């Protein structure tokens, strides 16, 4: 007889009670039911599989699309006391991979990228393991379509079948009804759904329409200069994040750094730790930022570019105000901003006639082209031409729907929260002045208590390098 979930929680983490959603998800898993947990960022999703892994013999296999952050995840597992954890992805060196493969059966938690798992030899090795649980992290990636799209996620259904349908936990921070259905369909599962409200009443929602790009820059500088930090500004491009960080540093005097997947792991580590230690006021980030961040007092999240869908948006603004104190999510919009996500989405999407021509004569095409590489990938995995055309058509439709929904949010005239929650099939509380400010409506930052009261002076290092070195030890 297994001990109760609460006893395990107490033993492993020293907590008395679960956060909402955790217990429901664990109970469903304990009952042998596949589970789709839609829990907001910061709700403690990892605890679910950590605790399940602790309670059951065998290996918990976590599929995660975030290559660059996978090692961070493993570190976090180790910090939490789960030492038998490892990650295998394309960034893992050959020798390290060999080392892990030699001891594969010894690991309690294995993180793997979908493309690694899609390799036949790897799949063969995984089949020999005693899997207690399969976790699909960031499960909304199955549905999302953008520059970060990973075609391998679409193979997960077939892979899951090959692994004899192991008990599966699908995790995502945000998923509306159609996304949930698509996740379940792709993974060939009928999961129990555990969903918490995505609403964050302490985050004031604001959409600001600006005339054009220069006006947007001006407004951003103004906001960063006025708002109480710490804050995060999200961009769709690494370059823009980097350049704006430089500009903001010069114009506002606040301590700013850029953060994106193009930085090496040492820089990512340092910037993340500086932000957590309060040595930075603002991070100019791409969507790569956020996962490793346990920071409760982020006061604002500004979006410089239009996110591709409301789900990503909800996830990113969810990094504000975890301490429950007043915070704000601002979306800056200039007419035509929707062109960027449209363009990014189309970047490696092949046309229907390209698909037909490719399937007729694959050898005539170069896989250097990202779109062709995608087709080659599907073809090698035995997916038929018709299935691929359907897939792209459906995906295209889904993406357009998601973008239209995002635009509807931007153009919402009355209540942003109502618009947002409706997209997740949720009821919203009545609108008041603490709720939101749609485009065109004035927003009184002072009234909301969001203006900077104190500017933290830059940390003064005293005593020269010897003293600094001394303080380390």
């Amino acid at each position, binding site marked *: 007889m297994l001990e109760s979930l609460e006893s395990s929680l107490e033993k492993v983490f020293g907590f008395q009670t679960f956060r909402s959603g955790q217990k429901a998800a664990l109970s469903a898993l304990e009952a042998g039911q596949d589970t789709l947990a839609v829990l907001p960022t910061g709700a403690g999703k990892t605890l679910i599989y950590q605790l399940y892994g602790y309670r059951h013999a065998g290996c918990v296999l976590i599929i995660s699309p975030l290559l660059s952050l996978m090692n961070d995840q493993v*570190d976090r597992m*180790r910090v939490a006391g789960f030492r038998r954890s490892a990650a295998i992805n394309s960034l893992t060196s050959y020798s390290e991979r060999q080392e892990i493969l030699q001891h594969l059966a010894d690991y309690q938690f294995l993180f793997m990228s979908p493309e690694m798992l899609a390799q036949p030899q790897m799949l063969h090795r995984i089949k020999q393991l005693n899997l207690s649980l399969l976790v699909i992290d960031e499960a909304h990636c199955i549905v999302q379509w953008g520059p970060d799209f990973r075609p391998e996620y679409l193979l997960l259904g077939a892979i899951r079948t090959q692994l004899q349908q192991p008990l599966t936990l699908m995790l995502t921070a945000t998923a509306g009804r159609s996304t949930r259905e698509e996740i379940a369909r792709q993974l060939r599962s009928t999961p129990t759904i555990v969903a918490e409200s995505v609403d964050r009443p302490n985050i004031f929602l604001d959409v600001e329409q600006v005339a054009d790009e220069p006006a947007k820059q001006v407004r951003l500088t103004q906001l960063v200069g006025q708002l109480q930090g710490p804050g995060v500004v999200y961009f769709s491009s690494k370059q823009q994040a980097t350049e704006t960080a430089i500009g903001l540093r010069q114009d506002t005097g606040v301590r700013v750094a850029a953060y994106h997947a193009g930085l090496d792991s040492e*820089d990512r580590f340092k910037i993340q730790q*500086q932000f957590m230690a309060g040595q930075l006021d603002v991070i100019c980030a791409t969507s790569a930022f956020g996962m490793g961040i346990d920071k409760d007092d982020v006061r604002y999240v500004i979006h410089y570019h239009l996110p591709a869908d409301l789900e990503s948006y909800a996830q990113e603004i969810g990094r504000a105000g975890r301490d429950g104190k007043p915070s704000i999510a601002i979306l800056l919009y200039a007419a035509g901003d929707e062109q960027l996500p449209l363009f990014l989405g189309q970047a490696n999407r092949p046309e229907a006639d390209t698909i037909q021509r490719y399937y007729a004569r694959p050898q005539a095409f170069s896989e250097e082209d990202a779109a062709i590489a995608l087709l080659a990938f599907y073809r090698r995995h035995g997916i038929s031409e018709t299935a691929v055309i359907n897939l792209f058509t459906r995906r295209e439709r889904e993406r357009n729907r998601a973008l239209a929904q995002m635009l509807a949010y931007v153009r919402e005239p009355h209540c942003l929260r109502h618009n947002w929650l409706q997209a997740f099939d949720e009821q919203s509380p009545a609108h008041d002045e603490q709720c939101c400010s749609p485009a065109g409506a004035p927003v009184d930052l002072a009234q909301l208590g969001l203006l900077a009261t104190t500017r933290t002076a830059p940390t003064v290092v005293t005593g020269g390098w010897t003293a600094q*070195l001394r303080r380390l*030890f």
Partner: protein
Amino acid sequence: MEAVDLLVLLDSQQFRRLRVIENLLRERKTVSTLYWGQRYRLLYLLGLAKKMSRGALDLPAQALLQQGLIVTGETPDQVRLTPKGEQQATQAYYQPQTRDTWTRLDLMAARQRILLAVQVTSQYAHETKRYYPLATDLATRQAVRRWFHQAKGQSLPGHLFVSLKTALEQLPEMVAEVVTALFTGYQQPGQTVDQLARKYQRTPWEIYLMQLDGLMQIAQDAQDQNHPLRSLLQSTWQSPVSRSAQQTLAAVGRGRSLEQIATARRIKPSTAREHLLEAAILMPVTAFPYDWILTPEIQHAFATALAGPIDSWQYSALPQALQERYAFFYFRLYAIWCDKRGVERA
């Protein structure tokens, strides 16, 4: 790398090939790259930017060209400083003090190990149980774990502090500041290279060179019996010559001919020759058996046939009969031998 970082790698007399510098940085160790790396006195760059993309020096070179600081030679790939460029290149730019020894250490591995060891010891000194370790590869983590298991104890933090301080005191104040600021440890996330570049108004590459200089100094000190990092860094010392080339060289030492060696080791004779050239370039002049291979007869033949500065020598310009008698290998080895003895012209 920015334009100024490239500028200081160039010369006003010698045309230098951008591709050679790029290949050194990316650690593409062909004999040609190594030979020219030696001729440019830039072998210390070997493997300092393994992830640099191909053609990454083209933009900085273009900038230098536009500012009139360099001119190109016979091909656009060959560049040389103009008088104006030479003047700029002599302005304050940090020249690492320890760079001549860089190829003797796996500096990248040593760097990872020192940074993680400092973090681990710092957190240990402050009795922190849970913290995020720097992201490093498995080999580094294992090496540091083994080292720490055996080195930990009350005196370790103090001992390490004194050792690091002693190493950094041998370098300019600013380098000591930079190396210290880049460390990660208890309540000190550490600065990034870019942040320090901004603070000191230097390029990120120059900051990186300062860090490597500091770390090399630490590694050198750690050869001492009582240094706390001795066992951690011992295995990062390496011969710059590849294992395979060392084996070929050893066989030559046993009196075998190149053909015999090639047959015995199942390599092509041309590969055996490349091994020897690699070893000759990367080893001190006294450690290579030049006299065995370059017989007095060969020496005399080349000394008579060649004229002018080394860099102008061309195998294809030698008399046909000489080319038939002596392969390119002997020609190249002769040039290396001259270079190593400081003979700059025939």
